[in-house]
């Protein structure tokens, strides 16, 4: 359908094959910027999630003991609630009159509200919050396979904490890190509710653009083309993750 076209002002689809829709995406700065913005947000979400999930997963595997089940459940809750409820909750938390700004102001730490809604910061917070479990779960299962006492062995051989992470824990958690990164990146790329609500219509991402075209403009062929571009990126990420796993297994 993405190679069909729809004349302006009409709802009738012309099924003559054309690359017009793709040319429009490539030629219009609005869509290219949207694409780059989406890629950037997804990348930042992945990086932040990895940064948070690594110590958290290590702690769950090595230190949580009998609280492990409870903590894993707490980590998973945002996922099983769907996208809408946690995002609405975050709006309360992040808004100019929300919990975070309210607390900081009443403590006298800031004079003016931080702008945490209607911009990329808010979306980033929402995305990391929503997709952290996708990073934690594969990491926990990768770290679970770490032989007991390897950290102790490394330290007794002269490795400081940072070297233990760099030389032992990170290489051994690479499969989990790659799988988690691919999952988080793809989820963030296609996420729709989070950027819509936390961006408050001021930050367009690829998913919200496709939504606009499909549901508001009713240009289905163009919406399909946008979706196809997203699909192509997903396929690319999938292939890259698969290649990276093979590479990690070999080295």
């Amino acid at each position, binding site marked *: 359908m993405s190679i069909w076209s729809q004349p302006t002002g009409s709802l009738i689809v012309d099924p003559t094959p054309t690359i017009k829709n793709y040319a429009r995406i490539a030629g219009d700065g609005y869509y290219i910027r949207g694409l780059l913005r989406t890629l950037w947000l997804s990348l930042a979400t992945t990086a932040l999630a990895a940064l948070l999930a690594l110590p958290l997963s290590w702690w769950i595997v090595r230190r949580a003991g009998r609280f492990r089940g409870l903590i894993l459940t707490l980590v998973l809750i945002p996922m099983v609630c769907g996208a809408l409820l946690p995002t609405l909750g975050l709006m309360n938390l992040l808004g100019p009159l929300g919990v975070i700004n309210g607390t900081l102001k009443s403590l006298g730490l800031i004079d003016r509200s931080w702008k945490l809604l209607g911009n990329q910061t808010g979306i980033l917070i929402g995305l990391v919050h929503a997709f952290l479990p996708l990073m934690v779960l594969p990491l926990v299962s990768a770290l679970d396979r770490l*032989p007991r006492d390897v950290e*102790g*062995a490394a*330290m*007794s*051989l*002269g*490795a400081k904490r940072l070297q233990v992470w760099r030389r*032992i824990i990170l290489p*051994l958690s690479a499969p989990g890190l790659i799988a988690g990164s691919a999952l988080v990146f793809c989820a963030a790329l296609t996420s729709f509710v989070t950027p819509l609500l936390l961006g408050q219509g001021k930050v367009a991402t690829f998913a919200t653009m496709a939504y606009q075209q499909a549901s508001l403009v009713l240009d289905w062929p163009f919406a399909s083309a946008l979706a196809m571009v997203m699909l192509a990126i997903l396929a690319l990420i999938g292939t890259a993750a698969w290649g990276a796993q093979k590479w990690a297994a070999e080295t």
Partner: protein
Amino acid sequence: MVPPPMTSYLKIDAIGKSYGTTRVLHDVRLDVAPGDFTVLLGPSGCGKSTLLRIIAGLLDSDSGKLVLQGDDITALPAWDRDIGLVFQNYALFPHMTVAENVAFGLDMRNLPKAEIKARVAEALDAVRLGDLGDRKPAALSGGQQQRVAIARAIAIKPRLLLLDEPLSNLDAVLRASVRTELRDLHDRTGITTIMVTHDQAEALSIADRVVLMNEGRIVQNDTPEGIYREPASAFAASFLGSPPANLFPLPTASAAQTTGWTPPPAVAGHLGTDALLALRPEALKLTEEPTPHALPAHLKRIEFQGADRLAHVEALGHPLIVRLSDDQTLTRPDVWLTLPDTPRVFSKTTGALIAPATKG
């Protein structure tokens, strides 16, 4: 008891450790002489592994001091201690080859490449794995993995080598040969070594000194022979030996009389008191005819163990195990049990040694 060594290479000074309200080490004091092979022996939960981890720096003690070669290392982090550590589960780095594993500690010390290569080869040769450097640990047998772990620990030329139950994951045949190799390696390198084990036979066969621990305390620190022949407590007597010493509670004088037993003079005085005899199975003799001071006993069964035969008997209502000499045949169930003239007597309630009062 052999007097403790004069020079102290490692001084463990009143180390205490608790987990919550459970005290796992009660102000433990121990001096380790240079070049010694010391074994920390005790049942599981006695605190021996905790003590080893504190020496390695992987655990912090609550109180006390560690002095290694005159340096106070109590607050030194594990990576600055120069102490080699070998774990029960090997803890090899699975993503590195054998040679990379052994080189790890040398890498951390930023040694020149050529020296690292030479020392890796030297360490692998010492454990006879010279040709397996390119393999990954997963491609090795359990015994080989254990030897890689040992090579990795000695490659850094540690000031102290710590072994945490190094043989427990190996099968019985391998265990005996790795045990001999460990002792050989120690004798060749001269590294002061502390090993933790719960296996008394392993401790007796490998150690210069056996440090017996129970419930967070050192109960005896002695040579293998000393701790076996002259246990300082009923616990020590019953923990060492296979089978361990029989703990035989003494009857009252009248009960002894009714069964027709005239105990040896060294024992007679303890009748009716809070006393136990610790009797090694090989120190007891069974005869079919009465001998002076022999105890009437009932033979229940003879267990064949190859080189040994163990007679299970009952005397005064208590089970005892007697090691039989090779040529002895017993045909009747009613036998006489001859005790050593001066057996070791312990308190039944505290387990403390009552007699002989001094060495001998």
